[in-house]
């Protein structure tokens, strides 16, 4: 079978993880998280195609909806944070210190 879709999905996921861990820009952080989600979507589609049933595709819809909702909420929180901290550097958001 063609395994290029699995590899691509894993590559996308890895890029997303690296982005999450190294980015200070909050927007890019969100983008990386979305990328990880989409990598999972791609994996679902790949296996749906491989096994020829629609179960994976239904899951893709679920993931897309959840991702969209989560992005909306996250961006709303970010807007509020921006109002307090006047920046989107996540290193600035460290008030809950021990």
């Amino acid at each position, binding site marked *: 079978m063609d395994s290029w879709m699995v590899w691509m999905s894993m590559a996308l996921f890895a890029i997303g*993880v690296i982005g*999450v861990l190294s980015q*200070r820009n909050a927007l890019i952080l969100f983008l990386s998280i979305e990328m990880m989600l989409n990598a999972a979507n791609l994996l679902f589609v790949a296996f749906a195609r491989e096994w020829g049933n629609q179960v994976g595709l239904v899951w893709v819809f679920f993931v897309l909806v959840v991702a969209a909702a989560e992005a909306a909420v996250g961006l709303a929180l970010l807007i509020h944070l921006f109002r307090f901290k006047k920046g989107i550097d996540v290193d600035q*958001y460290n008030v*809950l*210190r*021990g």
Partner: protein
Amino acid sequence: MPLLIALALFFPLAGFLGLMAFEKIVSRGWAGIVACSTIFVSFISFLIVLFIYLKGGMEAQSFTLFTLIPLERIHADFTLRLDSLSLLMALIISGIGFLIHLYSLGYMEREEDLPRYFACLNFFIFCMLLLVWAGHLLVLFIGWEGVGVASYLLIGFWSARPAAAQAATKAFIMNRIGDLAFLLGLILTYTVFGTGDIVEISQRAGEPFMVGAPVMTILTLLYFIGATGKSAQLPLYSWLPDAMEGPTPVSALIHAATMVTAGVYLIVRLHALFLLAPITLQIMGVVGGGTALFAALCALGQTDLKRVLAFSTVSQLGLMFLACGAGAFYSAMFHLTTHAFVKALLFLSAGNVVHMMHGTTEMEKMGGLSTLFRKTDRFFLVGVLALSGIPPFAAFFSKDLILEQEFLAGYETLFYIGLASSLLTGVYMTRAYCLTFRGALRLETDQLKTVKEAPLVMLIPVALLALLAIGGGALGYSFDSQPLLENFLREIGVNPIEEELRSGFLLTPETWLAMGGAFLGVGVTALVYTRYPDRLRAPFPLLKHQFYMNELYDDAFVKPLKAISRGIVHYLEPKVLKGLIKGIVQGVQRVAHQLQQWQTGQIRSYMAWMVIGSAFVLAYVFKELR
């Protein structure tokens, strides 16, 4: 009949409760009347019971009022026992108690706090009656503890005086040591017999245990130690001389006639057990004899009139224990009875002197009082002669009986010790009499106006007691080949050894020795007094300080305890304990500080940890799927 006894028992209790409840309201006069009448009712009731008992041919019985502990394994009923022993004690307690209540009306007339005093007195009578009427050891113990409490309350009656408060505390604590032994004995009794009922125990004692069984020895030893605490024997005696800080009627009642006799009563009550433990009996004889001699010597060296009498009590109690040790329980009870009369007489007549001299008890300040206190002088003299054992006064018969029985039981050394203490009794009593009543007057002239003979209310009880002291010996006398008291107590198995001796009562060599000793003691002392009056006044310091026993206790017990307490306060608590707690706190703080390093507040570090964690989880899942 049970109703009558219960009534007689609970009247004093009602008196106590009533006087306590209305302490602030009731007038001093009424308090006295109420208190005296409750005891009078008790006494009359007991007389009626005696009458019925003798008339109907004696039939000992037990009455169970209610159940104290209803459990199956440990069962205890509130049982009262009617027999000659309890009846005898009850008559002594209520009779002498009544006389002392009357006497108190006069003695305590200047007191403010009379309702409290009479309430405590009534409470004491109730507890003591409960003790002697008890048919179950637990009931006895209630009374036992109760008289200890009453003693504490009454010795420390004048609570503003530090000496009185200290004496009361000392009495209670020393009592407590004995009480601990009693309680242990009670527990052991339940373990061995499964019950605390006295009659049952006495009947069953012989079955599983032979004479000399170790269990019996331990059991009886425990009860004996309890009796030692209550009856002021060595080494738990020193509270009694100190207890003289209390009012004189209290000393007469509690520390002469009744409470201190509770120990002897206990032993006689449980004589069935004691007869199975010859080792305990031997120890008892030795302790009793030693105490008798020791206390007699101490009495010789006192300058305080009441203390002479206190040591005398200790000595006479020692004689009673001596008798019990030889198995002569009857003579111990006989002596208990005569001693109660005589000692109460002595204390009350001494109280006459003390009261009219406005509270002085030091014999240094007395002398030649026979001119001022003519009647009291006679009464006191009767007491002195009686206690010394001069026939035909009461105590001669009982003391002589003890000495005889001692000799017959084969304890010759103890016989001589008893004889010696009897001789000394004559000496110190005569000395006390001479120093107080004879010789030159030591009062100042302006005091002479206020000091005179005691009022009638104080004289009449003393007179009655004097009559009993003179005639009390009749209790031991045979009217028709059977002595009264002996016959009375025979039914519970308390009878003297060698009954054939009854007929040759006055002819034994021991009797002559006893008589001779008494006359010698009294006579020689009187003679010495007429020649060298001042020699008698100056006592040897060793005797005056009770052979430094109190100092010994102080060094052996009080000082170490205080040192330990100081050590704990100054060293253990601040350094060890505080250090320990501090160390724990610091340790926790350090751990917390380390853990705090984790909470950076940085989102990226949290994310990094999340990623690592999920990597581990994924690896685990993959491993399982394989």
